């Protein structure tokens, strides 16, 4: 049993003040006693205390202190029927501490001021500029794509700029990313070009993400360690546990790289979410789960997605270090993900971060969200809790930013995006013969060869004479002639 449990104890010994749960359940197993009983009673607490040193509490959690029983006491209670019966009411909900909520870590308040007592993550002016540029690039791209798109779907990033860019900046460039679809900013942070974005969204011949086979924003790039996005929700979550385990088994990446997995609070309702967290906790691997809680899954508000305390409350159940962070505060996200990443590597274990934000935009271009939420709610959010504005105010307070810089940046980004857009528009689709490639590796099976030959035969016969086909073929690179060879 002991191989990785032993490992865990030794690495945990090094980490700050985390004392119970994994460590204790490991010991319990070695001693041969059941660990299921006393584990959960203290787990939520220990997860919170573990992050105490960097947490600024918005909501108090001290009420838990009274309920928490030490390990020795718990043993005694277990042996004493009387204690059981007398204190039964106290045992209900002792894990969650009654009505108190998991606190949210923040560095900046809504006005961009550093909250008293909060520790600023280490950043300098140049790094701040980079954060801000990338945050601004997201809505710039959104606006252009929104205005041009005629059919299909493009998702939007409004409202989550801080979560995406803050986390991207905290990760190493070669940490493996498994995203959902709102994480384009991670790619941009890593140097994925605006031309690459356009190529994928247009599905043109330069689309290195998927040769025009997928819907817009389904990016992928091995060069940027960004696994290709899949439409079916949550499938990336157990995959991330496998990717993390592979990293742990790769000598030159072990202790250096982690798997970082993003998903929405809606996707977290899928079975795959539970499968993924469970696997990453029982088969330990350096896997960082980043739940983007933006309040909505298309039209469904998060209140209809769970009755517990968000996604963060589930982490302790899996014995995973967990923190909730203000997803509109880029510095808080940066600090929390840096710390979470460090824990992943030091402990060789999964960590869960829940980033709270609000999806200011519609779900996608085929969605009109004012049908299910008031326009005023959205407008208020844009003004009161705007992640870009908040960071801008902070930069101004440091003397790092001013109105001229803002004007220059916006103009430059818009120009870059428009240039890439105009270029992408002129490009054709990938070769038609790509329709049959990449289904299998190695030799192409007969049924695909035959189907390819059948299409080629039809094209030979009608391709140049049947007008609708001729028009359609003209949209492909080489006008479909590659199929005829």
């Amino acid at each position: 049993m002991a191989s990785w449990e032993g490992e865990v104890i030794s690495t945990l010994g090094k980490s700050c003040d985390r004392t119970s749960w994994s460590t204790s359940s490991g010991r319990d197993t070695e001693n041969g006693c059941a660990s299921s009983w006393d584990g959960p009673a203290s787990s939520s607490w220990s997860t919170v205390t573990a992050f105490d040193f960097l947490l600024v509490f918005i909501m108090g959690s001290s009420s838990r202190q009274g309920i928490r029983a030490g390990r020795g006491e718990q043993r005694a209670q277990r042996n004493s029927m009387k204690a059981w019966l007398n204190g039964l009411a106290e045992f209900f909900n002792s894990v969650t501490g009654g009505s108190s909520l998991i606190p949210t870590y923040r560095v900046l308040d809504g006005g961009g001021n550093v909250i008293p007592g909060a520790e600023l993550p280490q950043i300098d002016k140049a790094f701040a500029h980079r954060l801000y540029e990338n945050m601004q690039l997201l809505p710039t791209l959104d606006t252009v794509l929104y205005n041009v798109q005629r059919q299909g779907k493009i998702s939007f990033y409004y409202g989550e700029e801080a979560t995406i860019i803050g986390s991207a900046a905290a990760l190493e460039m070669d940490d493996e990313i498994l995203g959902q679809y709102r994480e384009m900013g991670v790619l941009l942070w890593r140097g994925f070009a605006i031309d690459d974005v356009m190529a994928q969204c247009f599905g043109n011949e330069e689309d290195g993400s998927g040769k025009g086979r997928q819907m817009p924003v389904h990016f992928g790039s091995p060069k940027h360690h960004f696994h290709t996005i899949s439409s079916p929700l949550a499938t990336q979550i157990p995959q991330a546990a496998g990717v993390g385990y592979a990293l742990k088994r790769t000598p030159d990446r072990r202790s250096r790289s982690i798997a970082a997995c993003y998903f929405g609070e809606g996707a977290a309702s899928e079975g795959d979410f539970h499968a993924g967290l469970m696997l990453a906790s029982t088969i330990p691997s350096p896997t960082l789960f980043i739940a983007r809680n933006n309040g909505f899954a298309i039209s469904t508000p998060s209140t209809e997605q769970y009755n517990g305390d968000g996604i963060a409350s589930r982490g302790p159940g899996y014995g995973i270090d967990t923190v909730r962070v203000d997803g509109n505060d880029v510095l808080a996200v940066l600090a929390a993900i840096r710390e979470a990443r460090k824990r992943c590597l030091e402990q060789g274990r999964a960590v869960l971060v829940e980033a709270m934000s609000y999806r200011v935009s519609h779900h996608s271009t085929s969605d009109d969200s004012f049908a299910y939420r008031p326009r005023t709610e959205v407008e208020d959010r844009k003004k009161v809790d705007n992640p870009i504005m908040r960071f801008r105010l902070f930069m101004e307070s440091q003397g790092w930013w001013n109105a001229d810089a803002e004007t220059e940046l916006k103009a430059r980004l818009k120009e870059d995006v428009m240039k890439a857009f105009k270029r992408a528009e002129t490009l054709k689709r990938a070769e038609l013969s790509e329709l049959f490639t990449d289904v299998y590796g190695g030799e192409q099976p007969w049924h695909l060869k035959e189907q390819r030959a059948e299409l080629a035969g039809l094209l030979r016969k009608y391709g140049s004479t049947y007008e609708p086909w001729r028009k359609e073929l003209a949209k492909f690179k080489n006008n479909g002639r590659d199929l005829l060879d």
Partner: protein
Amino acid sequence: MYQAVRDAMSIALAKDDSAVVFGEDVAFGGVFRCTMFGRERVFNTPLTEQGIVGFGVGLALMGHTAIAEIQFADYIFPAFDQLVNEAAKIRYRSGGTYNVGGLTIRTPTMSVGHGGLYHSQSPEGFFMGASGLKVVIPRSPIQAKGLLLGSIRDPNPVIFMEPKILYRSAGLFAVEQVPVDDYELPLGQAEILVPGADLTLLTWGTPVYHSKVELIDLRSILPWDVETVAESVNRTGRLVIVHEAGMTAGVGAEISAEIQKRCFLKLNAPIKRVTGWE
């Protein structure tokens, strides 16, 4: 056949440092002596089929060799999405930049006679529409070893279905001396076991042992070996397909459609399917 499967996995683990074997209860019962490869390489997972396949996809995405076990083929359905939408399509959706060729899913299949509803099914047909996957069913210990190693090393994700009645029944059917060395059998190729003149009988898995005419073991369900079958039917003029799964939209339906197209003028009788009751 049980030992042959174990043997194949031992070879895969020994020769490929990235290979891992995992699934529900695989570390239990001495399937492998844990000391041989250690718990880092042969391990139990929690009870989550979707998780097992998703986890394997993740390993394979990183170029590792993932040999996952689904305890019974009847329980592969929670993993259907990870298999059909993920494993099968990752290469295509990423334009060839990612693939999960290192993934092999082993799972015991078919009936033993006392398995009841949920330990007797033959779900291979459900995967026949999932291009990108390969589906393989061995008939004997030698076949199991060669095809499993072939599957593990194939550059595509493979579902490897092991007819469970054959695990411990070497004496019942054929006694085979399984080569101890590493060796592979090719996927996608059927084998004519008994040559004949008047009728082609096409089947796979357990039913292979119940026939007398020109007998073909299809071995791979996807892609299936249309050439061998068509060549045989062109000679014999008659085809009977036998499978354990039910008739409607079973694998036999697909094969019948293709063979009647290719062998229409040579057929002396309609293609007949002998299948499980639905």
